[in-house]
Every structure is written in structure tokens, then in C-alpha cells.
């Protein structure tokens, strides 16, 4: 190898380094867009794009709790309140089929939804901590979709039911044991209003 000057190459590198330090704050100081209720969901129909977040809306006496993401942001556990009319359903490890218990719970949830026809629900799919984050996001989507399809089969209009997967990212129980994991392998039902469905 001959003696080579690599000045342009080196300059490029150092510019990159300094740019990061110089430019990062402007990027990270943007308003927290998660706090905005404006949804980027491409499925949104225009009429449904009114602002709404978490538990706002629904029927006055019912409380499913806010979305798990919002609860996490507020420092709360994403637990479904005991008073919620819509109960969680649970799944086996790496499965998204519905057990007899899950179907029974979904039938009760469907009954309430039939009696509260203005309520729109976002179904959250969750997983336990085991396995890969991305696979669990896909698995959570399957779990939420399985619950949605069963509710639809019981006569709940699909446009009242949206889904979201949080994978393993927002556990309700944070111990590393099967007792805990089985609580996290769940679909959760959050009443939303004015939110688009997908």
C-alpha cells in the first residue's frame, strides 16, 4: 500500500459526528406528538376523525380505562379496571386461537356492546415478554384480530371495533414467571369514541 492522503474522507466523518451533536436537539425537542389525538391511521374515515383519546366517551358509567399506551405515559399500570364492562381474554404462549373461556368472555363483551350501541372499542393485543419483540407485535395483532372477528361473528359491526398490537411492550405484570406471563398474554378492550376503526 502506498502512502495515501484521506483528507476528504476524514473530514466527512468528523462533520457527521458534529452534525449529530448539533442537530439532535431540534429533532428531539419536537412536541410530543403522541399526546396529540390526531391519528395517522390511514383507514380513518373522514367523519370519524374527531379528536378522542383513551377512555373519553363511551357510556358515562362504563370505564374500561384508557389505552395501555396512554396509561403507561401517565405512569399507570395498563390494568383493566374491575368495574370495566369489557373483560380481558387470555391466550396460550405463541397462540392466538380462542379458548372456551375466551369465547365465553367475548360473548359477555358482545352482549354489553349490543346494549351500548354507541360504544366503539379498540382491541389491544398483548404478549408476554418471551420471544422477539417484532414477532410478538405480529402475534399481538393476531390476538386482537381473533377477538375482533369473534365479536363480529356475534353481530357487532366491524366498524365499531379497531385493533392495535402492543406486543410485549406494555405488560400489566412485570415479574418473570408464568403466573405473570399468562396475565400479559391478553386482548384488552378499551372504549374509544370518535376514533377511526381499522
Amino acid at each position, binding site marked *: 500500500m502506498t502512502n495515501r492522503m484521506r483528507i476528504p474522507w476524514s473530514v466527512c466523518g*468528523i462533520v457527521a459526528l458534529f452534525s449529530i451533536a448539533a442537530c439532535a436537539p431540534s429533532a428531539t425537542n419536537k412536541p*410530543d406528538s403522541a399526546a396529540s389525538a390526531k391519528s395517522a391511521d390511514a383507514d380513518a374515515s373522514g367523519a370519524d376523525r374527531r379528536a378522542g383519546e383513551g377512555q373519553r366517551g363511551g357510556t358515562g358509567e362504563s370505564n374500561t380505562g384508557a389505552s395501555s399506551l396512554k396509561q403507561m405515559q401517565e405512569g399507570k399500570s395498563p390494568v383493566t379496571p374491575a368495574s370495566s364492562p369489557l373483560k380481558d381474554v387470555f391466550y396460550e404462549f405463541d397462540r392466538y386461537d380462542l379458548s372456551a373461556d375466551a369465547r365465553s368472555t367475548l360473548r359477555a363483551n358482545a352482549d354489553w356492546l349490543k346494549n351500548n350501541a354507541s360504544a366503539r372499542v379498540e382491541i389491544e393485543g398483548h404478549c408476554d415478554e418471551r420471544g422477539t419483540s417484532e*414477532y410478538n407485535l*405480529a402475534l399481538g395483532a393476531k390476538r386482537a384480530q381473533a377477538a375482533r372477528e369473534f365479536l363480529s361473528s356475534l353481530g357487532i359491526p366491524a366498524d365499531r371495533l379497531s385493533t392495535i398490537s402492543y406486543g410485549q411492550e406494555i405488560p400489566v405484570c412485570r415479574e418473570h414467571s408464568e403466573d405473570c406471563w399468562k396475565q400479559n398474554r391478553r386482548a384488552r378492550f378499551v372504549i374509544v369514541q370518535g376514533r377511526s376503526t381499522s
Partner: protein
Amino acid sequence: MGFKIALIILFLSIRPWVASGAVTGEIRGQGGERFPIAVSPLKNTGGNTADSARLSTGIADAMVHDLELSGWFKVLDRSAYIENAQSSGVTLGTFDFKDWATIGAEGLVKGGFSVQGDDVTVELRLFDVYQNKERIGKRYTGRVRDYRRIAHKFVDEIINQFTGVPGVFNTRIAYVSNSGGRFKEIFVSHLDGSEKFQVTDNHTINLSPVWSPDGRSILYSSFKDRNQTLFLFELYSGKEIKFTPRGGGRYLSGKFSPDGQTIVATLESGGNTNLYLLDRSGNVIRRLTNDPGIEVSPAWSPDGKQVVFVSDRSGSPQLYILDVSGGAARRLTYSGNYNTSPEWSPRGDRIVYTGRVGNRFAIFTIPVDGGEARKLTSESFDSEDPTWSPDGRFIAFSSNRAGKYHLYVMQAGGDNQRRLTGSGGDDTKPHWSPRLD
């Protein structure tokens, strides 16, 4: 943004070192063990001395870190060094090789520095103690605060001298950390944890950071706009592009093709996940899979012609390979009932992935053509999310062997597993940058 030109490299001399094992890519000392090398504290050759002690040992410490992380060198303990670094010379003929041969060093790194204001000039040399020769000599000029990068670049040269392929220590790792809280944010840092930079600060969940092949951008997925999708963040400018699926659904993750022109992404829609080829703006070029099951975690072959990914079409998550140009996918893994997060070696020959062993997760590699998988980590703890170094000689991953998840690096065969990060939280999902300038 006016940046000063800060780093100039002069190649003072480069001659081949006919060291034992040099042609095999392995570095071994005379006894077949790790190559014994001494790294002297640097000599202050002039200028401001306020930073003298920090630079003298700091540059040496950074080189020691890299040499030990490589697993190829045995760095001799500094307390055994005989000569005084500040009074002896740093060039051939100005110090006594016997002082180093006596303590068992076969290689020796010496150097000097001088500070001028905010800038530092560093000269580093690698000597062959047996043959009393200089093997590499380089001069670097940079900002004082960048002294560790100078050390990383010189170690990359040392490894090039031995193996014919430069080292990978002037690189960075992008990863996810909860910093002990519940939010997950994206960070990048050097392998030694220095120059840590927080890419996201949106107090939600940010996942799956990957580098663009030019090292200038980070693609990651985020819940910051409530529905998960991908964002492409330019490290240089701070600009960010949001990827919005036109037909609905959510992007879960993406990976740049080796040429940087396209992205293979996972799109979830109606509960199904499939792979799509996107352009750099997030527009769909074409759909790659059409399966009712789970299809996630795509990764490119180094020639950009194939993608390895995870599918549960057999009933459990397994690895498959498809040609990007079309055709049926070929199943790669048959052992184990949970194989995920594949990454294709830059050398092309093996694929690393996470596999379930009992109730634990371990890192495996498997030949691209199939065959016997090799387990690289113990199942007495969890190891996940492997990522290759740009030369394919190392694998970084996350593991909970010390309680919380931290990042680790090992050689591609599983040897020399060493911890990289020690933040108070869980550090996960590492992605190794390309070589940086």
C-alpha cells in the same frame, strides 16, 4: 453549522507484518495463544498539559478495550511495564525493546500527543518486539474530546495489519433502552459506550432501530403518533420522514437493502403481517409475501438478492429465505419450535438468529444452505436480538445474564463474550453500524 476540519490521517509507513497466522484471519501469538501486546500510556510531547493524564491513559485505555473486545489479543497489564512512558521515546531507536520483551510482549503500541487549544495531534505506532521493527505509524489530528475515536481507528489499523481486513471498532451500535423507566427510546453509542446519543425522546415505545448502509440515518418504528409506524431519522440534519402505509395498516419494522436504495418492511394489516419492498420514502414498490400467518423480521443477504425472514406458516416461528425477484420461500430451520430475528452474515455464509431452548432463548447460527445449527450462548440465561459486525467476525446481542438486559459482543463462533453497556435499564435490539469514517 460551521465545522472545523478536525481529523487528518497521515500514513507514515505501512509494511506487512508477517505475523504467525496472518493469512488465516486469526491472530495468535508465538505460543498459539492470544497475541500478547503491550499498550503504553502515551507520551505528552508538548503543548497544554491540562488534559495530559486523561489523554495519556485515556487513549491507551480505549485501545486496550478494543483489543480485548476482539478476543485476539492478550493485553499485558500496565502495572508490569518497566519503562517510564513520559521519559522514554516513542520512535524506533529511542526506547529499549528489551523492556517489552522481558514482560512477554510480542507487539507494542506506543504513541505521543500534543494539545493545541481544543485540538490534539496523536501519533501512534505499532512495533514488532521480536524483530525490533515498526509495523504501523500514523498521525491523527482531531478535537481533544474525540480522542477515543482516534484510538478506535488505530486499533482497526492494527487488526488490518494482522488479518488483511480492518477492525470494526470505529463503528457504533444503535439500540433500544428503557433507561430504567417504562418508555423505550433509541440510542446510538460507540462500542465502548462513549459518545452516547439519544435519537428519540418521545416518551412512548420506539423499537427496531437499524442503520442505513451509509451510516447517516436510523430507521426505527415508533408508537409516538399512537399507531406504530416507521420513521427515518437523518443523524446529520435531524430531519425525519414518517412512513405511512397508503392502504392502511402499520409498519412494524424495516431493513435497508445493502445498496441503501430500498427497504424490506413488515406491514401489519387486519391482523396479518407480510413483507413489502419499499423505497426510501416509504412507498410500496411491491409485496413480497402473501400469507395469512405471521411474516416478520426480514433481513437481506449481502448481495441484496434474497431475504431471510420469520414465518409461522408451519405452525411455529421458523426461518425462511425468499428471492426478492419472486418465487416460493425456502424453509431454513427445522430444529426448535421458536426461531426468530435472523440476520445474514456480511460474509454471506451463515445466518444468526434467536432460538428457544426450553424456557430460555439463545443465539444460534446456521449455514445459509441449511444444515446443523450451532448454539453460541448458554441457555442458563436469555440471549436475543443478534446483529453482525460489518466484517462478519463478531456478533452483538442483548442478554439478561447480569440481571437486566445489556448489550454484549462475541466472536462469530461464540468465543469471548463481553458486555458492552451498563446503563441502569434494559438495553435491547442492538444494530451494528457500517464502518464509519
